[in-house]
């Protein structure tokens, strides 16, 4: 009897312990470490309280990173959701052509991120990239333009574009799953009522897709806070921090500049932003789903 009561705990223990050791404890540790000034070279930790956070507020590169993350969120939502919805409506049917096209659109999502970054770094290359080669035929002034370097502020936009290109197929699939959940009877009823395609879209599709779209937007938001790989591969946050985001700046501070306490403070900020976004996500995604979890 006693053994039976223990059984469930023994079954979950390995997973829970592993998770606690490698995720939860380090998270708490990160928050604690963010109150110290220390480095690998000089491991003597000096307690500085909230100084790291005060410095962050005056650090132009940190503020720039925040701004770039925000830009990432906004432009990713604006750039991806409408295109993804349009694609889901355009090539969402079960015909072979559409299925094949969906496979192609989703394709960039399975290509390793580092490879995607390198591919686009080459496309953006000022002297022999494909982009300038095309554009220079239309307007010679594009010859030699550095999409990732000149002017420096352009880099983040070029990276965001690649990110949209890579993820739009993923969001197309998410929205398509939502579209397929709409019962056909509703469209038939709209047709009987004399609604055209556009009217059916406005009065049936959009209202019923509202929640799915909102959830997807939050998914993009959370993803954009964590964004690291593309920025790191394409510019490493440069030139001169112009395309820095929180994750790249955190990595640079901690593992290139060896300012571990400062890096921990940036990580804590990322954690806080993710936490807020998650709370909103749970609120929007509704109680029934959380209950099902």
């Amino acid at each position, binding site marked *: 009897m006693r053994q039976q009561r223990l059984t469930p705990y023994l079954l979950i223990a390995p997973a829970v312990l*592993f998770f606690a050791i490698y995720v939860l404890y380090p998270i708490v*540790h990160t928050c604690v470490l963010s109150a110290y000034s220390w480095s690998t070279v000089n491991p003597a930790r000096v307690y500085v309280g909230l100084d790291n956070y005060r410095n962050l507020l005056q650090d132009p590169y940190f503020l720039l990173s925040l701004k770039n993350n925000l830009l990432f969120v906004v432009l990713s939502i604006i750039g991806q959701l409408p295109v993804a919805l349009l694609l889901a409506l355009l090539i969402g049917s079960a015909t072979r052509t559409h299925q094949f096209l969906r496979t192609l659109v989703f394709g960039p999502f399975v290509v390793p991120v*580092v490879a995607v970054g390198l591919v686009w770094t080459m496309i953006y290359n000022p002297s022999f990239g494909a982009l300038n080669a095309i554009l220079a035929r239309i307007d010679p002034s594009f010859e030699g333009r550095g999409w990732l370097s000149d002017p420096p502020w352009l880099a983040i936009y070029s990276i965001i574009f690649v990110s949209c290109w890579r993820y739009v197929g993923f969001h197309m699939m998410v929205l398509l799953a939502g579209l397929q959940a709409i019962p056909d009877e509703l469209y038939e009823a709209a047709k009987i009522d004399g609604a055209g395609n556009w009217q059916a879209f406005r009065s049936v599709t959009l209202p019923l897709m509202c929640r799915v779209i909102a959830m997807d937007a939050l998914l993009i938001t959370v993803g954009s806070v964590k964004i690291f790989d593309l920025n790191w591969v394409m510019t490493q946050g440069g030139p001169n921090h112009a395309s820095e985001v929180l994750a790249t700046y955190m990595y640079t501070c901690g593992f290139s500049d060896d300012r571990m306490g400062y890096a921990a403070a940036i990580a804590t900020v990322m954690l806080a932003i993710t936490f807020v976004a998650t709370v909103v996500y749970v609120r929007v995604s509704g109680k029934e789903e959380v209950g099902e979890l």
Partner: protein
Amino acid sequence: MSRRISSWSVNALMALIALAFVAPVFWSMMSAFKTQSDIRLHPWAWPTRPEWSNFVEAWQGSMGLYLLNSLIVTVIAVAIILVLSAPAAYAFARLRFPGSAVLLGFILSGLLIPVHAVLVPLYHFNPGSLLLQSAAQGSVQVEWFAERFGDWIAVLGPYVAFGLPLTVLLLRAYFISIPNELSDAAVIDGCGHLTILRKVFLPVARPAVATAAIFQASWIWNELVLAMVFINDDRQKTLTVGLMSFQGEHATDWGVVMAGVFMAVVPVLILYFAFQKHIIKGLTAGAVK
């Protein structure tokens, strides 16, 4: 007439969509077959004749080793994730016990946590590495093992831990949907929970196991920042860090870099086109759930 125009324009639109997602990859892959001067002088032309030396150089630059390393690390990590997740998912789905909701919430909280939040502490106090270090005291074999595979031990910890939440979630959802009748017979036969899990639940839940495995494998195959922090030994580098250092060494030689990218991308694309339905389902599992 207007019908013909519209069907023509629909076809053109379809072709344009296909082109937008294929052309960038195709163009850069083409560069892997071109000489340096071909790349610089004729960015858009076909290779005058296929240039295999890029691939030879990429292979000598240990791209093959990186691929093999990624394969090993991914397989081990996914296996451990499944072994740890299945019993937990079973308990959360099928058994009632005090604290189950809290403990489930505890694990699921990991779904949205950025890996950056654990980098600094794990870099300095990695449980796997510390364990290995203390075991290596006085044992030559363990010492050799630590030197040869220590970075993998360090990186596997967070790989597994971050893979657990979604896997538990997916398996649990599937286990809940399995009718009681299936397991009742086994219970009457007096089988233990682990036997029931292995003989009844896991075989039935194969689709969910495949979905979870595909998602985690893809994540680990692509993971960059943990690999950058924990894998420094050249012999242990996985594909992502390997490609980065490979690009660093051949910074100006884009033909060679693209040959490396080609070797990293083509196996993945072959798998993708062979199992596209499963892969798309697996990769969107986290969102569509």
